[in-house]
């Protein structure tokens, strides 16, 4: 079975919520829609206090190219436009909407029938995607229309659909592939048309056999789509590793996937593209996995963007008793929350309850030079070296040792028998190096 060659680790999967049918989280009393979902500029608010909005109405206009539109996920009255906490604890402008009823825009097609025919041209599709505010739903939330716009002089040859979902615990993409296989395949054909490519590869890890079977069944109906089962190995869902696993090509250092002729999209993004193009529905909801070892009923839930996490927790039966830490996202790359008063953003893929016995870090011991981190690193870096350079704040040396190539997958910190906080120091170094770069450019 195919997989990437350098590094990677095998982790226990704990896919506790696998096969749980998606349920819908009811609407909260108030939603807080962040205007910044990604590493770009915040959108410009298009509504003001007291305005009535409908579901799907534009409330934030993209500011510049690397930015995405934001639409109202609920109908109701705009309470205020103010700064709200994001998962990092920093404040960003958000739109607070008091929910009144559930009144959708008339232009959105709510019929369940799958619409196969797409008459739009490539540029029209990309324009439609940009208007619908679609961002990469795998977690990085990079605006999709930017990814689909191929830079001049380069050519996309193959579309890669990321169904790997290599993070333990998370099952939101898995469940989507089971329930919306037909729609995803239509989405793939739309993306192929947008990119003008003849071939698409869907990479799914072999621990999701039922999803592979379902997607294969629907893929047969269209030409040029191939479903490739992959070994279960972390971090296969990372763009560069997935490209290597599926095509055998390695993205050059500092390069983009399109340098090797590939464009990668997540399955959830593909589904959002289908809904935007065929049903005229902007990105206003997503599936999140709520799970944890001590949870009685882990599951997958459709949640409107902007729903406070406290509301989600309430709906799924409250916080399990022995919880010591709550993580937004998966256990490897997710982020521990300091408060549940944070809204679901476009990139929130899961909510994970970690029991208090496992919530704390273990005691940090000395590096024993076992080089496990070197073998685990999927980018071929030397994490132990980068950490010791980071401790001494030797940023230039860190840059020479390619710290900026780090994809922050956390394999090194996970595998370290001395529990050393390798990734913490590397991340810190990356920020410092980027700051130096920005300062020297000015």
């Amino acid at each position, binding site marked *: 079975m195919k997989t990437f060659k350098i590094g990677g680790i095998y982790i226990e999967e704990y896919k506790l919520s696998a096969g749980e049918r998606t349920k819908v989280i009811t609407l909260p009393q108030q939603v807080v829609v962040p205007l910044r979902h990604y590493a770009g500029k915040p959108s410009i608010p298009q509504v003001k206090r007291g305005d009535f909005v409908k579901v799907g109405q534009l409330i934030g206009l993209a500011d510049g190219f690397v930015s995405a539109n934001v639409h109202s996920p609920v109908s109701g009255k705009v309470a205020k436009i103010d700064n709200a906490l994001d998962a990092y*604890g*920093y404040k960003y402008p958000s739109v607070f909407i008091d929910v009144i009823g559930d009144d959708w825009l008339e232009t959105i097609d709510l019929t369940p029938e799958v619409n196969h025919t797409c008459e739009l041209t490539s540029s029209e599709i990309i324009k439609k995607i940009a208007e619908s505010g679609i961002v990469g739903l795998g977690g990085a939330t990079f605006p999709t229309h930017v990814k689909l716009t191929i830079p001049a002089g380069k050519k996309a040859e193959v579309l890669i659909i990321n169904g790997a979902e290599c993070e333990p615990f998370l099952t939101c993409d898995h469940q989507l592939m089971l329930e919306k296989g037909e729609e995803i395949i239509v989405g793939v054909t739309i993306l192929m048309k947008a990119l003008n490519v003849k071939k698409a590869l869907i990479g799914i890890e072999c621990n999701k056999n039922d999803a592979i079977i379902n997607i294969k069944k629907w893929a047969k109906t269209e030409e040029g789509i191939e479903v490739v089962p992959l070994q279960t190995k972390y971090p296969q869902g990372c763009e560069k590793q997935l490209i290597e696993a599926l095509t055998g090509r390695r993205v050059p250092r500092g390069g983009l996937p399109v340098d090797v002729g590939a464009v990668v999209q997540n399955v959830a993004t593909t589904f959002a593209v289908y809904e935007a193009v065929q049903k005229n529905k902007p990105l206003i909801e997503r599936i999140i996995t709520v799970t944890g070892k001590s949870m009685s009923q882990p599951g997958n839930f459709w949640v409107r963007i902007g729903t406070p996490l406290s509301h989600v927790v309430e709906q799924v039966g409250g916080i399990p008793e022995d919880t010591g830490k709550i993580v937004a996202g998966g256990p490897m790359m997710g982020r521990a929350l300091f408060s549940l008063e944070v809204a679901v953003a476009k990139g929130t893929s899961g909510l994970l309850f970690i029991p208090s016995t496992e919530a*704390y870090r273990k005691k940090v011991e000395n590096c024993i030079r076992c080089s496990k981190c070197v073998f685990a690193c999927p980018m071929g870096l030397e994490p132990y070296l980068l950490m010791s350079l980071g401790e001494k704040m030797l940023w230039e040396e860190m840059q020479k040792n390619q710290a900026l190539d780090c994809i922050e997958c956390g394999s090194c910190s996970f595998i370290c028998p001395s529990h050393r906080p390798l990734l913490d120091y590397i*991340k810190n170094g990356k920020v410092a190096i980027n700051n130096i770069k920005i300062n020297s450019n000015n």
Partner: protein
Amino acid sequence: MNVILISVLSLGGIGALSALILYFVAQKFQIFEDPRIDEVEAVLPAANCGGCGYPGCRAFATACVKAESLDNLVCPVGGAPVMEKVASILGKAATTITPTIAVVRCGGSCEYRPRVNIYDGVKTCAIVHQLYQGETLCSWGCLGFGDCVTACTFDAIHINPQTLLPEVDEEKCTSCGLCVKACPRNIIELRQKGPKSRRIYVNCVNQDKGAVNKKVCTVACIGCSKCQQVCNYDAITIANNLAYIDDEKCKLCRKCVDVCPTNSIVEINFPPRKTKTETSSNISITEQ
């Protein structure tokens, strides 16, 4: 006999020849170094802290000797006495230095700014700052992991275990500015030490709206501008919901300390006030 003579002569000859070559080489490639650099370096504190902006005391001494005037050259560690000595060696006019001290502008101790979560990762402020807002709900204030303590080469700043905030040792602080650079949240500022080490400053850097930061910290500046109105010397400015006292304009009258509703303006090293009626007479004394 012959053997001894030949050895002595040949070795002596080689020695003499080498000496000659060395002499000419030394003449040819001689580098003239101003002897005053050594003299200046001798009076500098030899802390090599870099507070002056030069890599070590030697580099600073060289810069002093080369510079036409000592206007922008100040050794923060040595202060005025050292700079006067340097000036007398070089025969240049010494710049007048107002003594400064590092001031930690955060009053959010555990009592006023409760800890709401536990951080058990790497205990350095730089990493916590880029990770999230910290153990309290204030995203501006002190994180309390002591990057400033690590940075200080004079052992002059320490975390107080009661308040979990750094405290500056006035005797030891040389205002070299290493802690200012180390703090990722720019809380530490070099301010004038003031007469008899008396000074007044806003003990907060929170730029959120008053309603927001009052919830997370009871001693946060809420930007109410009461201090600005009461100040007779135009020393207080309000920007981004935060008051700032200009230490050059401040006359230490302490009126702002009295009116501040959240006690975020603090006075240091003032004698304790006796009663309310006597405060006015106190002010006139300090103004002189």
